[in-house]
């Protein structure tokens, strides 16, 4: 039975939490302190919930079929030409320079082999990385965290939101932090806070509720680390846009720059389900795009010298219909596009395939942008390439998938 007295004996900082290797964590840390710490690579993923219309984000502007099928949504004025065929929606303008510098890649026609058009299922499949599998128990980001090949910090796998996403469910301890400012035992006296934390640690260690045992471990260790950060005093290099995404990315930047051992981060951008009045240059889509674009651009600049360590990747559960619906919006589709940002990324290019003309016979079910790249090929390529997970591990990362990685990271 773990007691507080036992913890105090150990020096108060580390718990007797055993690592995967069987050694108590604090011993490992001591060992690591002897060798210079390698700065870890970080993968930051942003899930655009609701099914982003890839065709409006990155438009094949010369496609007359698209124009004909979306008379009220198609527009050319203000589009930012990327490569002569594809253009970026003007609200993504903050990302355009990154594309031109070769740091930002687009992959178009990405999607799932599973044809579900249910948000719930498709998001689930994309988060677990096991399309079609209802009873997947872990998420791919959790599995990726487990394949990093070295001892992980308590703050290795973090979702910057109040609920832990499916993609981070699994064996590896993962943390959902709504706001670093409020992440701590809220007792004014620091000494009392520390004692209180220790007491709760023991309570949770000895609980018969196993689920909470693990959760408690991760939580209290992470608390300790965050308590040493000066969150309120953090001066970002740039202003982030107002709104939840900006706030979350700012805190992720803080964690990265504080060298706490963050390696896999997740956050969300909501509101992409544009069934109704999607808008064109302005409107619902444009607003969402603007927030995403500004937040990511600010994040990138804020990273400064840490840019080399970081790759940002967006994803969305599926795309939207090529044609517009009766409410000046679009319904659920299949293929969409995503963005990958990093100094080592094969940027300045729109990867993937799209039919030359989006006529009915080229579309999936006669209505949707076909999926020409399996999302797992992208995820494996990015996570594998950037985080150093070897191809041999793809069967663990994405069970049931035997495709080829899309190489996006040099």
């Amino acid at each position, binding site marked *: 039975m773990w*007691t*507080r007295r036992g913890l105090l004996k150990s020096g108060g900082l580390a718990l007797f939490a055993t690592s995967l290797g069987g050694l108590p964590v604090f011993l490992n840390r001591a060992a690591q302190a002897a060798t210079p710490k390698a700065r870890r690579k970080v993968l930051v993923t942003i899930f655009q*919930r609701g099914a982003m219309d890839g065709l409006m984000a990155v438009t094949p502007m010369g496609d007359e079929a698209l124009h004909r099928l979306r008379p009220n949504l198609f527009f050319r004025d203000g589009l930012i030409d990327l490569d002569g065929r594809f253009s970026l929606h003007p609200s993504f303008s903050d990302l355009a320079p990154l594309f031109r510098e070769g740091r930002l890649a687009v992959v178009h026609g990405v999607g799932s082999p599973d044809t*579900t*058009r*249910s*948000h*719930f299922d498709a998001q689930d499949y994309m988060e677990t990385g096991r399309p079609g599998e209802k009873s997947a128990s872990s998420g791919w980001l959790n599995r990726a965290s487990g394949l990093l090949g070295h001892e992980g910090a308590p703050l290795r796998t973090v*979702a910057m939101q*109040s*609920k*832990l996403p499916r993609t981070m469910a699994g064996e590896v*301890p*993962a*943390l*959902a932090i*709504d*706001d670093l400012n*409020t*992440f*701590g*035992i*809220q*007792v004014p006296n620091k000494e*009392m806070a520390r*004692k*209180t934390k*220790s*007491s*709760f640690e*023991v*309570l*949770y260690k*000895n*609980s*018969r*509720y196993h*689920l*909470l*045992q693990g*959760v*408690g471990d*991760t*939580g209290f260790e*992470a*608390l300790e680390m965050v308590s040493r950060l000066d969150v309120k005093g953090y001066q970002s290099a740039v202003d982030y846009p107002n709104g939840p995404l900006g706030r979350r990315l700012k805190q992720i930047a803080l964690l990265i720059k504080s060298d706490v051992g963050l390696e896999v981060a997740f956050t969300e951008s*909501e*509101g992409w389900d544009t*069934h*109704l009045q999607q808008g064109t240059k302005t409107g619902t889509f444009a607003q969402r795009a603007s927030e995403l674009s500004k937040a990511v651009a600010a994040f990138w600049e804020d990273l400064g010298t840490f840019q080399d360590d970081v790759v940002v990747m967006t994803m969305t559960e599926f795309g939207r219909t090529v*044609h517009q*619906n*009766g*409410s000046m*919006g679009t*319904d*659920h589709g299949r293929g969409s596009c995503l963005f990958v940002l990093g100094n080592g990324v094969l940027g300045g290019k729109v990867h993937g395939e799209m039919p030359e003309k989006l006529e009915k016979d080229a579309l999936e*079910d*006669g*209505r949707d942008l076909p999926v020409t790249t399996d999302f797992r090929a992208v995820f494996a390529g990015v996570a594998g390439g950037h985080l150093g997970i070897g191809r041999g591990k793809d069967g663990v990362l994405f069970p049931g998938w035997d495709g080829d990685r899309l190489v996006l990271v040099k």
Partner: protein
Amino acid sequence: MAITRRYKLNIRFVLTLLVILPTIAFATSPIVLPYEKAGLNKKEAAAFLLDRFAYGARAGDVDRVAALSPELWVTQQLGGSLPDGVLEKRLAKFESLALSAQEIVLTYPRDNVLRNYMHKEGLLDLEKMSRDEIREKLQAYREEHGLRPHRELMGRDLPGQRLYRALYGENQLSEVLTEFWFNHFNVALQDGKARSWILSYERDIIRPNALGKFRDLLGATAKHPAMLHYLDNAQSQAEPKISVDEGMMGGEGNMMATARPKRGLNENYARELLELHTLGVDGGYTQDDVVAVARAFTGWTVFPAEKKNAQRTAKQIERRPRGFVHEGNFLFRRGSHDQNEKMILGQVFPARGGIEEGERILDVLAKHPSTARFISTKLARWFVADDPPAGFIDRLVDTFEETEGDIRAVMVTLVQAPEFWAEARRRGKMKSPFVFAVSALRGLGADVRNPQPVLRWVDRMGQKLYAALPPTGYADQAATWANAGALITRVNFGLGLAVGKVKGVTYDASAMNGDSADIEKLARMYAALLLPERDTKALIQLVIDEMPDATKRQDVQALAMILGSPDFQYR
């Protein structure tokens, strides 16, 4: 002494009978609860019921329910009509509760809607005026016209009444089921058009039908503006010039062609109706079914709340009564309806079905075996366990089908099942943030004068009320809530409560502990109060051994540790 006691018992018995006689009339046979076979005594049974059919026990509740008898308590709760004087007093300050759905929409306009209207009428200039000027103009206009700020509806009344009902309502099962059904037929306040209708949605159709017939609930949600807007059906229309032979009979020719929706059509509601409200994602429907159902519900829209639009529409109806069906805030427009023949779930729906076509589809869906299973599974998950045994679900399905979706009847089968009582020792359902907060406050007998701070805590724990953005609502499994960050927030909430620092909340701590400084006594007392009839020996010992600082307020620390304990996170 014996005489008075018998006298008292008789009076209580008679009064109870009078109260519950109407509800007994509903039940076909008296309820039998097999808790003894599960190894529970009456008090333990009562405590478990209060955890599952209510939002947790208040001080003295376990004794009251045991004295009444668990069977009688369940019967009362299934009746859902106990007098609620205390609650009604608390609800009085939420002014919107006294208004009709339409009045609410008109009285609490959204800020941007009011701004745009005033700008159009020349009452303010959005381009030239400063933010402060605009705000003043809005406020003045509201005062002049008897309007209220939108945030009073959405930020105060709507979530506040829900909190108060869970805290102070006597018809606890009704409240629990209202939460369940709202989550099932989820709508979210992030939807600009739907949001002003949400209070009415819960009050006027979810709660009154929560223990009724599933078909009634289904029909009511299909016609309520909150749902019509949230899933966009209000604007879904048939293409006026639909050629009949392009209809959906399939037959020869490409089924893919029929999969393409006609212009004007919005599939959102049809999809969620099948996937989330009735059959479930594996319930046996196809994409073609979704499109056909979407076509069937074209024309199901909202009767305008705004006066001028309402008058104009009323005139249209007057001129062509057969072109419309008007039921309160619901309007069926025949002109927007796709009149073609349709094939749905293998059944033919002949042309020119009118509004009856949609009604018939709802009938088919409500009676479908997949629906019985989907709903039964969800109920089992909410009330019994995250992973309910298959045989148990089968019995719920049987009841659902035999009674044509009578929710009360299904709940009777549920509460009489040994599988329900087998969970009493395990206490394996993790509390959602809302349930955690409410159960803590009920246990402490808290007076929540201002609901806002508590609601903010629940939001930070991951469950902002009425804000589950996707139509799936909040998932009902431990994994949803069990993450380190949210756990820390719960611990902090418990600390805040124990220290008396949660704003808007007061409770009488001294009445509870009698100012005792005996650690063991304190730990026992709080465990008995907050975890009645549960196995808390180990927890109590831990609280005693691991008190952070024995020199400081031990009552506060003991309470905080119990509230933040793993045990209290489960019900």
